[in-house]
């Protein structure tokens, strides 16, 4: 007892130093976000000032007004949200089934498949923009819903690209459900699909949520496909494009950019904070299993 207390006393200044460092780092890390929100609320004159101050005495909503009054901004927002939600739901369901297959069954090519899912994560999706562009163009001729200039052309590739990581990460969660549960369900006469959807699915759901963060972000943040596939149909543009409007040759409208960035960051931030705990344990599980 006395020994551990002695050790505590020795370590105390170190802990205070560590805590001061942690708070300082937290402040530095949070500063860009603080500056973004601050600049969004600053009145025009203060942003384009050569003496930027880290506070504002007269917050204004002008920049936000410019963002929202921009033609179709609400539409861009809804487009982004729609794309992200469809991607999240579809890839979660598909990944759940696939993760169940590779963790609860032993079959030929199982290891091969797992390695393929791993390799698939490495594929630089930007490099695939070129063939993807032609694929979408050709698909659009037979299936109008997913051709170029449609939201489908943003949804479908993102489902494909978020799947490998989602499957990889979900494995840990599916594995964590004891197999005796499946046996018990069987003995009680539950069919395979009943077990899958009414027992396994709710148990794995927290993991699905954690996995969804990554699909959500990749779809929500997408900039390249939105830029390359939505060429003429501006009504199908997504948020990143709305942001680029404020970059002008004669000088960027920083107020508008910062307000737009704030609007774009907020949903992801909310999502993150909500699933934060599951995310941490989920990563632990995915990495350790």
């Amino acid at each position, binding site marked *: 007892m006395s020994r551990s207390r002695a050790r505590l006393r020795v370590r105390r200044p170190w802990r205070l130093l560590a805590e001061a460092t942690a708070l300082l780092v937290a402040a530095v890390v949070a500063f860009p976000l603080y500056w973004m929100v601050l600049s969004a609320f600053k009145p025009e004159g203060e942003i384009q000032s050569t003496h930027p101050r880290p506070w504002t005495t007269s917050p204004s909503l002008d920049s936000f007004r410019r963002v929202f009054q921009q033609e179709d901004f609400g539409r861009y927002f809804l487009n982004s949200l729609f794309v992200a939600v469809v991607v999240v739901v579809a890839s979660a369901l598909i990944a759940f089934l696939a993760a169940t297959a590779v963790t609860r069954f032993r079959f030929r090519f199982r290891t091969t498949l797992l390695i393929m899912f791993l390799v698939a994560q490495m594929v630089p999706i930007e490099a695939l923009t070129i063939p993807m562009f032609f694929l979408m163009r050709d698909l659009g001729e037979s299936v109008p819903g997913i051709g170029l200039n449609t939201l489908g052309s943003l949804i479908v590739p993102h489902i*494909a690209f978020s799947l490998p990581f989602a499957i990889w990460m979900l494995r840990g969660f599916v594995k964590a459900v004891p197999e005796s549960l499946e046996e018990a369900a069987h003995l009680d006469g539950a069919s395979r699909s009943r077990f899958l959807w009414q027992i396994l699915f709710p148990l794995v759901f927290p993991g699905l949520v954690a996995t969804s963060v990554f699909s959500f972000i990749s779809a929500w943040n997408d900039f390249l496909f939105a830029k390359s596939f939505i060429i003429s149909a501006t009504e199908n543009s997504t948020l990143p494009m709305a942001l680029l409007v404020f970059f002008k040759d004669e000088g960027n409208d920083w107020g508008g950019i910062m307000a737009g960035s704030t609007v774009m960051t907020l949903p992801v931030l909310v999502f993150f904070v909500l699933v934060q705990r599951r995310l941490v344990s989920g990563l632990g599980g995915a990495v350790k299993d």
Partner: protein
Amino acid sequence: MSPGTTTKHGRPRAAAPAHRRGPGGGGATGARRRRAWTPWFYLAPALVVLAGLLVYPIYQLGLISFLEYTQAQVSGGEPTTFQGFANYSQLFGDSQFWEVTTATLVFAAVCVVSTLAVGCALAVLLTRVRALPRLALMLAALGAWATPGITGSTVWVFLFDPDYGPVNKALVWLGLSGFEDYSWTYDRYSAFALVLLEVVWCSFPFVMVTVYAGIKAIPEEVLEAASLDGASHWRTWRSVMAPMLRPILIVVTIQSIIWDFKIFTQIYVMTDGGGIAGQNLTLNVYAYQKAFASSQYSLGSAIGVVMLLILLVVTLVYLRLLRRQGEEL
């Protein structure tokens, strides 16, 4: 891979007792056959999507890289012609390609090392502090993590803006008068440094959170036993913690390599499409510019193939490491 985890006959390991109906049971083989197909039913949607939207495009990418494919072929004005390795030899003969490749490799390496160093150091720091500072750092990190690449990039550009940015002002205030109106994106290296800062800012949280979770998962008794045995801090880290964290460190390293090698949005937004005269191009942006800005689709595809091959090597190294650890897939 540890022995005995995979049966070589494709027999499901989790066979429920209800299925074992004894040797002559008529339904047994039928049920088993049905069961053998079940995983493939579950896998079908994923495989269809991946085959159509990942494998097929990769095949196409490889194909286009061997063709002459410019605007004329896209619009159907001219037939596509097979070029063999002509695109590749044109690419490899271009000094800009080698410059961009070197820049990509060096830049990715610096990003990976910085991200890992910052992330691991902060993860250790998190274990040494009480709840409140820990929460503050966690929340700040989550904020940086959640920030979309494009908004993160614009915010950092704004922070370092020569006219209105607070960073230059702060540096001048600190006595570094050289930063008065200093344009970070004008010089090649300072532009890369700016992108590096943003990349580390938005990717260290993943490393920090994961490694922190890993450290927390080490049982308290193990560390206690080590300290009772008189092990020093360094010794505990080297002989107890590092080996236990190894799998996690491998995962975060590989993920960082994959992400940092493929950086696109940051370079594209912060250096305005690859910097002045392409001084900040990385392979990804280079391929995109070749294909979509100058309509040289086949050259762009060839660059894409080169990227794929480099990442494939990384993957193989990763698999070897996993296997040497005896990790089960």
